[in-house]
């Protein structure tokens, strides 16, 4: 009978939220918005790369043969231009090489009306440095710089193929960038959802308290059932949303790849190996896509998704009950709620900081230990798992982390239930921490 009532509460919490327009909209729009933002960022960055025209006043001809214009900066050698008229003539900068000496590394003046972008400045510095290098190569080594260039280009093609011992002979190479990307995205997703759904639980509890429905409810069910029903119901809402996102994402990628003919893809991917450093933007984009598709298959997706769901649920249960306790302790005052959620949000934020560290060095002791402690494990462990189980994350670590997280949420649920039971019926002043401790001891 008791579980039956909890089930009724779960149903109500779930249905009342899933039916809301905001839920339906956010479920459908979030992936679209996400894709839109990425596209917009890429578009704006690409569009924002201006071509700067730089007038070079080089009476001694030091750069004449060696300073090459590029995509971002175009150099024109003019003797009829000076500081008074360069901007009127359509140049964004004026470059003066040093008046004396050869191949000096300093004394290059770049005069501008308004400051150039960071990228343009950096580009100019590199171009000058390269021009100097070419000058020195041809003057001191008496070699054609073009030859050196081709040597360097072929040397730059060097790739290492990190293969883990366990994967030897399977043709699987270890892709650090991809693993860290997947780790970053999944860990961040957990971070965001912990907040969103945790706060949703807190608001739900506060609503029940301020609407005074709490007393009606606890005359029918135990406060613990009420709290648990709410937490599980909202957790189910979260899972539903994830599921919808995964399905929508699959549909989107399906649509996108349908626009790229398969033979183009295979052409490009075979072409990549033959012509190193191929030119042309379109083919480069396609190449990246092909590369990405090849790489994606190296990740153990069932493991990553399985662990993601586990750590989402575990982390959610761990923190949601704490949020519920806070919701029960405060009244409608949003400020009180904020000040009391502060201690809960600190470990979550700390976890995100550790996660960034862990992405760069998933085997470090900081990453290892904090991926076992339940306060941080949902986020930090999720950032390590894509690097490989059981090599980067041994089974014992994963097992301990999972067990501790389960124990952790059982503990926080028990703890919160004690605060919740008293808090939900108490109106008036916000209780002090000391009072809440007394409720726990009761």
């Amino acid at each position, binding site marked *: 009978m008791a579980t039956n009532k909890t089930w009724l509460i779960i149903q109500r919490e779930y249905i*009342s939220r899933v039916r809301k327009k905001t839920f339906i909209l956010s479920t459908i729009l979030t992936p679209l918005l996400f894709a839109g933002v990425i596209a917009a960022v890429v578009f704006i960055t690409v569009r924002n790369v201006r071509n700067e025209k730089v007038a070079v006043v080089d009476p001694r001809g030091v750069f004449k043969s060696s300073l090459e214009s590029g995509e971002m900066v175009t150099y024109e050698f003019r003797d009829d231009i000076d500081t008074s008229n360069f901007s009127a003539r359509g140049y964004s900068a004026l470059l003066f090489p040093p008046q004396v000496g050869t191949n000096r590394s300093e004394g290059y003046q770049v005069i501008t009306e308004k400051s150039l972008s960071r990228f343009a400045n950096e580009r100019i510095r590199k171009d000058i440095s390269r021009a100097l290098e070419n000058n020195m190569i041809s003057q001191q080594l008496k070699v054609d710089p073009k030859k050196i260039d081709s040597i360097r280009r072929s040397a730059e093609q060097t790739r290492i193929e990190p293969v883990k011992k366990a994967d030897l002979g399977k043709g699987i190479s270890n892709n650090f960038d991809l693993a860290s990307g997947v780790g970053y995205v999944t860990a961040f997703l957990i971070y965001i959802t912990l907040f969103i759904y945790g706060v949703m639980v807190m608001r739900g509890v506060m609503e029940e308290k301020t609407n005074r429905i709490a*007393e*009606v409810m606890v*005359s029918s069910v135990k406060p613990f059932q009420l709290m648990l029903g709410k937490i599980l119901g909202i957790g189910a809402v979260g899972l539903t949303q994830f599921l919808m996102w995964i399905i929508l994402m699959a549909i989107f990628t399906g649509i996108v790849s349908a626009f790229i003919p398969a033979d183009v893809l295979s052409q490009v991917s075979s072409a990549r190996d033959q012509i190193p450093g191929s030119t042309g933007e379109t083919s480069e984009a396609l190449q990246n896509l092909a590369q990405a598709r090849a790489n994606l298959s190296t990740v153990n997706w069932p493991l990553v998704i399985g662990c993601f769901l586990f750590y989402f649920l575990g982390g959610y249960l761990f923190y949601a009950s704490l949020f519920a306790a806070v919701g029960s302790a405060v009244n409608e005052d949003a400020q009180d709620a904020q000040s009391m959620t502060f201690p809960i949000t600190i470990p979550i934020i700390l976890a995100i900081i550790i996660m960034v560290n862990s992405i760069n060095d998933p085997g470090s002791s900081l990453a290892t230990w904090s991926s076992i402690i339940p306060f941080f494990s949902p986020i930090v462990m999720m950032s390590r798992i894509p690097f490989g189980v059981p090599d980067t994350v041994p089974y014992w670590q994963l097992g301990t982390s999972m067990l501790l997280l389960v124990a952790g949420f059982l503990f926080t649920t028990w703890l919160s239930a004690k605060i919740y039971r008293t808090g939900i019926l108490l109106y008036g002043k916000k209780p002090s921490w000391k009072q809440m401790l007394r409720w726990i001891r009761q």
Partner: protein
Amino acid sequence: MSLLQASNLKKYFATQRAVDDISFTVERGSIFGLLGPNGAGKTTLLRMITGIFYPDEGEILFNGKPFDPLRDVEAIGYMPEERGLYKKMKIGEQALYLAQLKGLGKKEAMQLIQEWFRRLEMESWWNKKVEDLSKGMSQKLQFVTTVLHRPGLIILDEPFSGLDPVNSNIIKDEIFRLAHEGATVIFSTHRMEQVEEICDHIILVDKGKKILDGSVKQIKQQFKEHLFQVGFEKAPGTLAHPAFEVVRRQSDHSAVVKIHDGFSPNDVLRFYLDQDAAIVSFHEILPSLNEIFISLVEGTPAARQFQTITD
């Protein structure tokens, strides 16, 4: 066997002896009034009977067995003083949800809801939300959700507060009807005229202690001051007599007399008859519960003071 028997209930909070050693018995099928000024401990007492609070000390017997909230909540309908409903939920769904939480099956609950909604003319509300209802309307809904699962014990905390006279009467009639059908009703209030009208038995609590317990009739008898009103056609000449004294004379030739100990109303009548005074009426003046209430809790500060509990 009484339905509910509470003995020596105590509940202390950090700053209040909210309920301090209260015992009472509620008979099956009766309407039981729990009276007391604001902050006397009524709500705390009710919360213990409904299983929301555990008493610090004392025992509650429900149907002769120790009260077990898990088992017994379904036999109780509780309407708290602070009304509460889910504002965004549709009214029909809300009634169904609350009924199911009280252990009713979906089909049975639907049937009962429709029956109640028809009787209280709430049928058109089904798809409205609670936030669309006026205060009185949501009170009515709250009452229906409280009694829907046919509880043996109905506990109403200030059921009439905020209701207009028409709706007050509707609810009052429903309370009578439910009691008539065998339900036991406990309600707390501080409006005495309703108590006199409705309750069979009352207790009065003040500052966490019970100060009065009995049927309305008993209590009135207990607090009577032996006052009688005598109506005359024409005011008689002499009124003085050792058996009684005249408390006041009224403009319609009637007088209120107080009979001294050792004498009876007959002595008064005999005296006037002997005087040939034309008596048109004679009746006892019993104190109203309101007067008793005020005289008993007089001296209590209007707001209850905080105490320090040291134990």
